[in-house]
Every structure is written in structure tokens, then in C-alpha cells.
């Protein structure tokens, strides 16, 4: 693990028990890198979208797991998420559609009754100006999001 990275890995079975686990995980990850409430909220929203995708894309909750890593540079957060044992075949078309234009994906599906599995990600690109990249391997989906933060002074705590 990199010295300045927060990592969280857990099985998707937990989500089946309670959806709120998603928010608890994203609040934790956001809190370790953002002290200002506004940036913490922003980061938590982005991570929550990624974890929700993990829930939807996990093939078998008893086997699938999700690993997230978050690292902060001065004005942005780099978010990496791996969904092991993901529904790659089912996601293939959506990913091609998304990668052709994340912003366009958002416009196309806005207001749809079933807006598509990647709509949350396109929201990050469209509304939060995040750069989103998706890659696939045989049984895993990798997600990378570079999220710009608000230019707010972060409180500095004395040890």
C-alpha cells in the first residue's frame, strides 16, 4: 500500500444485508482525506456512486468483493475501485457506450425510467467534473475517478 493511501476491502455480501453500509464505507474513505465538510461531502458522494456500482455489478454477492483506494493530491482525489467477480459480459455494452462519451451518456439517459447501470458514473463526469476511466479484465472491473476538490482551506489539526 502507498504511504498516503486509504484502502478498504470487503465482501459484497454485506450490502445484501443493508444498503446503508455503502454510505458508511464512503463516509469513512472520504473522511480520511478531506477535513472540510464540503469536500468530505463531495468525496463521499463520488465514492458512494462507485460503491453502488460495485453492488450492482457484483455477480455473486457471497463471492464478489470490492477494493477501494483513495489518495489525495493538493486539489483532487484519485479514487480506484476494483470489483472482483463482476458481471463483465452484461456490462460490456454499457461500458462501450459510456466510454464513447461519459457526458453524452448522462444526457442520453437523463430522465429514463431505467437509466442504465453506469448512470451514476456519468453523473460524476457531468456534474462533478470528474475524469472517469473504466477497464475490464477477465473477472474484474476497474474504475478510476479523478475528482477535483473545491478550493477550500482544509483545517490543520495539531497533533
Amino acid at each position, binding site marked *: 500500500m502507498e504511504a498516503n*493511501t486509504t484502502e478498504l476491502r470487503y465482501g459484497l455480501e454485506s450490502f445484501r444485508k443493508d444498503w446503508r*453500509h455503502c454510505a*458508511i464505507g464512503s463516509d*469513512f474513505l472520504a473522511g480520511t482525506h478531506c477535513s472540510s465538510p464540503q469536500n468530505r461531502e463531495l468525496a463521499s458522494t463520488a465514492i458512494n456512486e462507485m460503491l453502488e456500482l460495485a453492488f450492482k455489478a457484483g455477480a455473486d454477492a457471497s463471492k464478489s468483493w470490492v477494493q477501494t483506494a483513495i489518495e489525495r493530491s493538493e486539489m483532487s482525489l484519485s479514487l480506484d475501485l476494483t470489483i472482483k467477480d463482476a458481471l463483465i459480459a452484461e456490462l460490456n455494452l454499457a461500458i462501450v457506450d459510456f466510454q464513447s462519451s461519459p457526458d453524452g451518456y448522462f444526457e442520453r439517459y437523463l430522465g429514463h425510467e431505467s437509466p442504465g447501470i453506469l448512470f451514476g458514473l456519468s453523473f460524476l463526469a457531468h456534474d462533478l467534473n470528474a475524469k472517469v476511466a473504466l477497464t475490464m479484465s477477465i473477472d474484474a472491473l476497474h474504475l478510476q475517478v479523478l475528482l477535483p476538490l473545491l478550493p477550500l482551506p482544509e483545517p490543520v489539526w495539531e497533533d
Partner: protein
Amino acid sequence: MGGLIAIGRLRVSSEFDDEFYLGLPKSLAPWDAANHVAQFLSAWLEETLKQRQFSVDSLNYVINELMENAIKYAADGRIELAVCVANDALLVSLTHPLLESRAKIYQALAQQVFEADPELLFAEIIERNTDADAGEQTGAGLGLVSLRQNYQAGLAFGFQRQDSSEIVQTTTQVSLPWQ
């Protein structure tokens, strides 16, 4: 120090099997890292163990106390925190490596906290703190004894010397009675 040395009864019991790996940035201060872990796990367990009656604030305090000590004093290696459900209590166990010299100090402290009347020991440590010069370290054990005194928690400790090394795997177990 050789074999397993136990102070109190270390218990194992479980009815759920969520498992996490958490890695935290080194830039976080120990108290901040402990606080993040405590808040995350107590919120998670509040959701997972909805059918049980327990104080989330107490659980948060216990995890925070154990994690803070582990982050400050542990030798290089993994810190493992396990939460188990027993009939009468929620068991929180934290295991981490300690250098042998530090493990001996902790073992003596654990023995004292385990055997003493918590009310008397709590008052004694506070008194020592009040009398001490500024900056002097006199509060050792206050966190552990406050778990007994203020949270009615049970304590148990285990010390296991690793083969041919100066490392002692140290376990601190806190049992929080159901309400």
C-alpha cells in the same frame, strides 16, 4: 516470555462474518486514525447488529481506545481487530505485535488493571496525574481502567511470544455487556 500468557479469559464466539481490510495513510495522526476506524466500525456494527441492544457510543469509545494504543505502540506488522457476538456481551479483540521490552511493561500494566478495584485504581491514576510535573507520563492504564470503571466492560489479555524473535503478539479483549 514464552508460550501463551493469559490474563483473564479470552473468549471466541461469532454469529456473523463480515471481514474487512483497512489501510490508512501514514500522514494521519494516531488519534485521528483511531477515531476514523472507531467511527467506521461502530457505524457498520450498529447497522449489522440492529437486533441487539448496545451503546454505539460505548463501542466507539472501546475501539478508539484500543486502536489508539495499538497505533502508538505496535511494532511493524498487522493490527487485527475482531468483533464477536457472545450471549452476554459484544467482544472486541485487538491483536498486534509488540517489541518484547514494551510487551513486558504492558503485561505488568494489564495485570494491575485486571486485578485492582477499578474505582480505586482510577482515582489513584488521576491523583498521580494531578501531582505530576507537566509533561511527565503518568496516565498509563487510565484508558483501560476507565473501560472497567465507566463502561462496566470486562477485560482479558493474551501475550504470545513469536518463535525466535523479539516480537510478542499481544491481544486485548474487551467485553461490553448487552444492555
